Structure formats: C-alpha cells, structure tokens
C-alpha cells in the first residue's frame, strides 16, 4: 500500500523524522532545515529535488514559527525588505548554480561536499560554544561597532538606533541567499548571528525579522524550484506533519531544560550529519554499499539521539529527577 506514491514504511520514516527535526527546531531554534536536505540526499533523491524540498520544508516550518511569534515578534521592516530583496537575488543565483552543475553531472558531488563542510563547521562552532571556550560576547559588540563605522552610502537606521550601510546589509543577504538557494537551508543559523553580532541589531528585533524574511525567502525558494518540478510535495507534507507536532514538544521543553545542557549532543549530531553525507558520497563513488547503510544510520540515529535527549531531560525535570542513570545521561 502507498500514500501519494510513497510506501507506508517511508511515510512512517518521513513523519517520524519530521517529528525529530521539529523537536530540535522547537528546542534549539535552528536545525529545522539543514538536516532535511542531507537526509533526502542519503535516501537517494536527486540533488535538485533534495534542495527544492528542503526549501519547501523551510517555508512550511517558518510559517508555523511566524504564527507562533505573531503576537510578540518585533520586526524591522526596512531591514527585512533589504534582506528579502538581496536574498531573493541570492536564491535565484544559488538555484542557477545548482541547475548548471546538474546539467554538467557534478551537482550531487559538489552539494554533498558543501554539506560536509557546512555541517562540520557549524558542528565544531557549536561544540566550541558548548565547551565554554567561545568568546562571542566580547568580540560581538566590537565587530558590530566596526561594521557600523563603515560609511558606504546609503546609510539606514534600524530599530534600536542601529545605523548601518544598506550596501553591507544587502551583501550579507546576498551571501545567505546564495547559500539558501544552493543548499536548501533557511539560513536562520547564519542570519541571526549576522544581524545580532555583525550589525548590532537587538535580539528581539533580530528574531522577529529573521522569521519574516525566512518565510518570504523560503516561499520564493520553494516557488523557484517547484517551477521545474523539483519539490517532492508528498515528502514535504509528511515531514511537516511530524515537525509541526515536534516543534510544540521542543518549545515546551525549553521551559524545563537549559539549552546548554544539551548543546554538546547537538554539536555531535551536526558532526554525525557531516560524516553521514561524506560516507554516502564515498559509498556511491567507490561502490561500497555498506557506507550507504552507515550514513543512513548516522543521520537518523543522531537526530533520534539528540531529540530523545531533549525529551528525556524534560521528563526528568518534570519528575524532579537529576540523579537517575538515564537523567544523568542527558547532561552533556
């Protein structure tokens, strides 16, 4: 039996994976998208479909995020408009690069390599942050002040009395848009630090503006890939079915568990994702079937482990248990 051409077993896999991804997104506020495209690559979807479906999933997830934040989100519309225009150009550019590479037969290899690098870099940064060696607070404001001091007209003033060159804001949006269109990621994990530490935008304004622009750029990205039939709509629908519920579970857990307690696991999951994509690619190139199985186990196992740690930690706090064998495991 199949639903929309997808076997029941795969329906369970997609809904279940969506649940795990949603839990992570609801808890950490990121990670909603940059595991979906690698998972689809590992499952054998063509790179164009994996990226297009990843962007459609980003759009659906950010719509739900925007609905949740609509009452208390602060949006700087000038910042959002500049970023959206720049990201739209970037996404179109990134998509054209993907389709060009696809035509030359090199898209799968290059996107896989880019994912290995991206997941490894974000994973190592998060691990460094989790181990307390990060020094973001002391370098952040200094960087923002230096960026604000660059006088390239036109200068614009954002909420929080932040005055920055529109050219710099557009350049940041363009780079993140290219990445988004090339890899199918939402870009929130880059936009947030770029706005807060790079431009000096207050956190509350950065969160609201981030959700608005990812919703709009996600819609544009999904549209541009869907035009060429590169969005697997049933897969996106099943992933969203799980992730919308998981996002509520993850968001609920944030009231009970300190994010820093689980951050080490999150970093390990990103590094496992990087290893999974690398193993899958090597398996394809050298015809080693077992590497395909290893990569599937790594990417789904890591997502299961970390979201399981989030839920277990929340249950332990609910029960007031910090010393039990399982509860001690939830502190990384």
């Amino acid at each position, binding site marked *: 039996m199949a639903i929309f051409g997808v076997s029941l077993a795969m329906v369970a896999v997609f809904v279940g994976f969506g649940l795990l991804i949603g839990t992570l997104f609801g808890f950490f506020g990121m990670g909603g998208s940059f595991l979906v495209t690698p998972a689809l690559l590992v499952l054998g979807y063509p790179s164009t479909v994996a990226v297009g479906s990843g962007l459609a999933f980003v*759009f*659906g997830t950010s719509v*739900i995020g925007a609905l949740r934040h609509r009452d208390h989100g602060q949006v700087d519309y000038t910042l959002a408009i500049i970023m959206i225009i720049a990201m739209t150009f970037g996404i179109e550019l990134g998509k054209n690069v993907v389709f060009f590479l696809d035509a030359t037969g090199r898209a799968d290899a290059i996107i896989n390599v880019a994912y290995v690098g991206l997941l490894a870099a974000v994973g190592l940064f998060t691990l460094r942050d989790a181990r307390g060696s990060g020094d973001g607070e002391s370098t952040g404001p200094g960087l923002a002040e230096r960026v604000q001091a660059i006088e390239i007209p036109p200068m614009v003033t954002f909420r929080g009395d932040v005055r920055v060159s529109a050219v710099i804001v557009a350049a940041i949006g363009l780079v993140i848009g290219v990445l988004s269109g090339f890899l199918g990621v939402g870009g929130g994990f880059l936009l947030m630090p770029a706005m807060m530490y790079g431009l000096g935008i207050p956190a509350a304004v950065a969160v609201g503006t981030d959700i608005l622009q990812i919703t709009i750029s996600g819609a544009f990205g999904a*549209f541009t890939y869907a035009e060429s*039939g590169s969005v697997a709509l*049933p897969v996106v629908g099943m992933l969203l*079915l799980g992730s919308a*519920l998981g996002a509520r579970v993850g968001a609920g857990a944030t009231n009970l568990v300190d994010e820093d307690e689980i951050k080490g696991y999150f970093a390990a999951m990103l590094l496992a994702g990087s290893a999974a994509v690398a193993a899958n690619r090597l398996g394809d190139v050298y015809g080693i079937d077992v590497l395909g199985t290893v990569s599937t186990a790594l990417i789904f196992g890591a997502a299961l482990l970390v979201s399981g740690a989030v839920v277990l930690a929340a*249950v332990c706090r609910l029960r007031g248990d910090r010393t039990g064998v399982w509860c001690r495991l939830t502190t990384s």
Partner: protein
Amino acid sequence: MLGIESLGGSAAAVATVGAVLAEAMVLYIGYGALTRIVGSRTLDALGGE
C-alpha cells in the same frame, strides 16, 4: 500524484507553495487545539502525578 503536476510551470509552483502554506496553517491550528485538550494531562502523566 496530487494533480499539481498537470498544471505545469508557474501555476504548479504557486499551487505547491499554496499547498505547503495551507498545510502549515491547518497543522498549527490542529496541533494547537490538541495541545489545549491533552497538553496539561500529558504533562501530569509524564511528571508522575
């Protein structure tokens, strides 16, 4: 599969984005109602009360 493929090009793309938007809104409302109905009871059960 879903009938969208027969539209082709921009119409299919608009329908795809619209379908994702509609599903996201339905899920937000549906899971919100579910959370209100069983949320506190689930938390009580998990907390061992």
